[in-house]
């Protein structure tokens, strides 16, 4: 599983020791609990000011500790002052124990690749028009979570749809609502971004998606047993038969889950590189049998912290009746239907050509019969 800070613990220890030796001791000593001593108070506000240069509305300074404890930063050991790095000491003799105007948090300190990609995006370029878009505009502040487990719609709602009225700007796109429901925005808007088909479990009875933990609990197995149990031929890919076995196992547990498929981008820094005019507009890129967009297919077990475990699935699953609730026009078409269709058309044409040929060949016979018929009717008239 990809972690934001995959530092081995030994390296982490060295970094920590280095901070203790070289950095201000007071900064290292500021614990989150000290911050929450004030910031877990819902009534904590920064008051508005009448000063024209610093005018601002009242701003809530409350941070929900419970929600923060589930954030990706907290889960990776990032403390408050790691981001708010201009707080070095706390002076409790003052009304506000630190600077009252903190500097903006610089996410690029850690998220360098994402920052580089963002700098080459339309969202950076709009600064020239006086619009400043920060990381927090999409990701929020204190409760940032992994987005791997989110659906295409949730991803859109969490980012693009906050500013963009997607429905108004896609009139050219046939079946735009279907696209919005099944395709994440950046799949088209950053065509270079790696993407895959996400297969998740959808409960028909309650109309909700199952989490990975729920599925494991239903199957009575642990995460480590999931793939060994499914992958009977040990090729590290879930094929059509193995996929159908999984559905059968769930049915045996009285779970009527269907597989919900979406096309989403992988969590890669390049997804931040959205640019005007770079969006994919050629429908054939997806809607053709040889489309590369359907090559990567993964079954997803979502986690509560927003991360997800991906299990590789054979593309053939997309073109089978095992996946009855997803079909991308042309892109995931069943080859069997093409063969049946060809036989129907060839049969129709063969009947026509065969009959026509015999009609042409038998023209002399019909002429002869017609002549004989005329002669006999003439003879009848004469005999009268």
């Amino acid at each position, binding site marked *: 599983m990809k972690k934001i800070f995959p530092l081995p613990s030994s390296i982490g220890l060295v970094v920590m020791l280095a901070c203790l030796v070289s950095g201000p001791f007071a900064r290292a000593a500021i614990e989150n609990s000290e911050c929450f001593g004030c910031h877990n108070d819902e009534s904590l506000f920064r008051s508005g000011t009448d000063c024209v240069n610093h005018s601002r509305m009242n701003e809530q300074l409350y941070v929900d500790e419970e929600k923060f404890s589930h954030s990706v930063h907290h889960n990776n050991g990032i403390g408050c002052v790691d981001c708010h790095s201009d707080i070095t000491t706390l002076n409790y003799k003052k009304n506000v124990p630190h600077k009252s105007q903190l500097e903006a948090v610089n996410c690029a300190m850690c998220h360098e690749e994402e920052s580089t990609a963002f700098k080459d995006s339309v969202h950076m370029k709009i600064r020239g028009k006086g619009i400043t878009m920060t990381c927090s505009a999409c990701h929020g502040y204190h409760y940032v979570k992994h987005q791997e487990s989110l659906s295409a719609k949730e991803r859109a709602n969490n980012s693009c749809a906050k500013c963009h009225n997607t429905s108004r700007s896609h009139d*050219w*796109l*046939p*079946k735009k*609502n*279907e696209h919005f*429901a099944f395709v994440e925005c950046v799949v088209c808007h950053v065509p270079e971004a790696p993407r895959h088909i996400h297969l998740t479990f959808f409960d*028909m009875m309650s109309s909700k998606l199952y989490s990975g933990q729920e599925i494991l609990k239903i199957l009575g197995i642990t995460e480590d047993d999931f793939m060994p149990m499914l992958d009977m031929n040990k090729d590290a890919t879930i094929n059509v038969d193995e996929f159908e076995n999984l559905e059968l196992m769930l049915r045996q547990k009285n779970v009527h889950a*269907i597989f919900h498929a979406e096309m989403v981008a992988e969590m890669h820094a390049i997804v931040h590189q959205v640019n005007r005019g770079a969006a994919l507009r050629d*429908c*054939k890129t997806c*809607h*053709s*049998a*040889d489309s590369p967009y359907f090559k990567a297919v993964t079954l997803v077990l979502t986690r509560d912290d927003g991360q997800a475990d991906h299990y590789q699935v054979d593309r053939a699953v997309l073109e089978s*009746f095992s*996946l*009855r*609730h*997803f*079909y991308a*026009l*042309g892109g995931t*078409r*069943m080859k069997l*239907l093409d063969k*049946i*269709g060809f036989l*129907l*058309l060839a*049969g*129709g*044409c063969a*009947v*026509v050509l065969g*009959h*026509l040929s*015999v*009609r042409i060949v*038998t023209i002399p*016979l*019909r002429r002869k*019969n*017609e002549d004989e018929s005329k002669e006999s009717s003439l003879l009848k008239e004469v005999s009268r």
Partner: protein
Amino acid sequence: MKEEKRIYIHPGPVRAWHWLNAAGIIALVITGFQIRYAELLNLMQLKDAITLHNYAGFGVISAYFIWLFYYMSTGKITIYFPDLATFTDKAVRQAKFYGYGIFRGEPNPHVMTPENKFNVLQQKAYLGIMFVLLPAQMISGVFLWKVKGYSDYIYLLGGIRIIDTIHVLFFFFFAAFLVVHCYLATLGHTPLAHFKAMFTGYEEHH
């Protein structure tokens, strides 16, 4: 020379329905191939093919209701129902004609009248097409037109893959039928006689 008799077989609403339906089906078949085989065919942009397919689909649905209203309101719908008592005998005679007698110049065993314009094989074929295949194709087409809007019905019927399979199989059937239908229309007393009759309304009997 044989005596030629003109009989008014195809009333105006039927002719209007027929040609509207024909234009729609031809457009649906062409755009259908373009949509399914976008990587092989380059007749038009895929999005244009989808738009045209949708319009043509609604054209065929509208034409279907013209047909249904006319035949139901006049009571002529019965021309589509074969008489079961004589069906087998007549079907064998008609099949023998198409497979043998027609090559020898024998007369068609079925004589077209306004009240009985189809032979039994036509009755059986059109009964299936107009009451089963075409409605199924129209309904599956409407579902595919608004997948999100009709998602509850689609789930109920087993999923989008099932709806698509029905639509595609019938699409191939209609494409094949179009070829056969056009050929069968050349089996009149002249190759263009039935085509002409579908414009004028009058069939010429010899």
